[in-house]
């Protein structure tokens, strides 16, 4: 009696184990399939449009002909601007939170603010940028306004990943340094930051990928519908890849005709983000090999 009961339960457990494992595996694989499909679709349809002329010339006829050079340059400027602003701010906040702040109510409030910031929809950042940078500070629709808006959007990513990188540095290194009579800043500067920087950079670069791809934050703050020239200063408007893609897909009368251009633009954007992410991985691996404890 007892024996049959246990064996039937064992059989049931085994069956569930197989079902659960199978389900989890199927879900994981399906992610790869979806990503693979998207990438393949873009590559296959975008590759024919991709040539030197496409990435090195200006668009013509509202973008329905010609290349996308100003959009590539615009996105590069925006991303560079965002990273220049967001990285020091984010890293400094992370150092403060991880190394200086007394953990308590105040740090909880800061953390709550960061999480909230991370959860704010990108269109809200766009409106925030419009209100603050474009109108209130009077920067107008410009690279400056767009970069600042993007910077605030990727700030939480940078703070959180930088803090993680700082926490990964063993406490023993801090204690060892303090015990030698180092001040807190000397300890952070000489014995914590050098080992956390690779991780901090990696997180920042992931933020860059996001900044490059977002449309909503730049919609009101910088992106030009059609501007076939390169910017002269940070107070100029620019075209940007994601917004250009949006324009090609929805704003032109003959959307069908420019389909190859859309896919070409998408492919360039994808490649750009891929390059950033690859750089992040290479950098991380390089530094992880060097630092060991």
């Amino acid at each position, binding site marked *: 009696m007892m024996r049959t009961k246990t064996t039937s339960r064992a059989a049931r457990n085994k069956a569930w184990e197989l079902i659960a494992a199978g389900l989890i595996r199927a879900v994981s694989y399906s992610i790869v399939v979806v990503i693979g499909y998207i990438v393949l679709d873009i590559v296959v349809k975008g590759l024919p449009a991709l040539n030197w002329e496409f990435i090195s010339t200006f668009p013509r006829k509202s973008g329905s002909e010609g290349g996308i050079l100003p959009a590539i340059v615009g996105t590069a400027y925006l991303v560079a601007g965002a990273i220049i602003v967001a990285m020091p701010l984010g890293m400094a906040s992370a150092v403060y939170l991880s190394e200086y702040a007394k953990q308590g109510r105040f740090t909880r409030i800061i953390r709550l603010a960061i999480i909230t910031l991370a959860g704010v929809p990108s269109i809200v950042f766009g409106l925030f940028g419009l209100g603050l940078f474009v109108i209130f500070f009077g920067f107008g629709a410009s690279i400056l306004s767009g970069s600042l808006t993007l910077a605030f959007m990727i700030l939480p990513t940078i703070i959180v990943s930088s803090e993680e990188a700082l926490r990964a540095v063993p406490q*023993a290194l*801090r*204690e060892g340094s303090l*015990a*030698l*009579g*180092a001040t807190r800043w000397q300890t952070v500067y*000489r014995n914590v930051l050098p080992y956390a920087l690779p991780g901090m950079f990696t997180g920042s670069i992931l933020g860059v990928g996001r900044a490059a791809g977002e449309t909503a934050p730049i919609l009101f703050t910088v992106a030009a519908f059609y501007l076939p020239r390169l910017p002269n200063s940070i107070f100029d408007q620019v075209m940007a890849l994601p917004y250009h893609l949006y324009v090609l897909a929805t704003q032109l009368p003959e959307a069908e005709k420019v389909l190859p251009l859309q896919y070409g633009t998408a492919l360039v954007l994808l490649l750009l983000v891929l390059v950033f992410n690859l750089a992040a991985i290479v950098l991380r691996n390089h530094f992880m090999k060097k630092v*060991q404890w």
Partner: protein
Amino acid sequence: MTAQPKIKVENLDFYYGETQALFDVSIDIAEKQVTALIGPSGCGKSTFLRMFNRMNDIIAGTRHTGRVMIENMDIYDNGIDVVALRKKVGMVFQKSNPFPKSIYDNVVYGPKIHGVRGKAELDEIVERSLQDAALWDEVKDRLDENAMRLSGGQQQRLCIARALAVEPDILLMDEPASALDPKSTTRVENLIGELKRNYTIVIVTHNMQQAARVSDFTGFFYEGRLVEFDATEVIFTKPKNQQTEDYITGRFG
């Protein structure tokens, strides 16, 4: 015991938040002697050791009452420069914690922080410190090598050298040999015997034989109290307290 104790603790109570970890501890620690603190895990001996260089300061929510005096100065006075204190009171940790830098850079870390810049002077500090830590002969040809590649015993001696490089008066050792093999342990113990000529040493240890071998005085901690403190010989041959006797004879611990 010398007339003037190097470290004098009076009625020390210590708390981690609401939890009291040390109860009314008073002790006189003699200059240029080795004082061992023994007791079972969690008895407060490491916490007590970390009072002497204010390492407990960096743990949030800790507080204490009572006095800790080094050379007649209350080191918890408002006017005390913690940086200067920690330069004077070096520490070697239980788990050796070399910095992931070269051997050379590990040793000069402290001196550089305290403003030593000259290459010749730094070279000299490195050689002297590594000599004093009985490590020089093993590493003199590979000072540029990453310290993480040294063996466990070498790493711990490097940490000792690093502490010596800032020329402390007092050396605190928190179970410095607990993670080492017997051979390395012997080396570190011999080293302690050498070092006491120039330094006042306070060592926390789990290992009673070690305390008996290396120390001149021994304090037995139990549940946050200093149960008995006397010359090591006395503690290990005719302890006055029953708990001490039970512990050193291995009846608990």
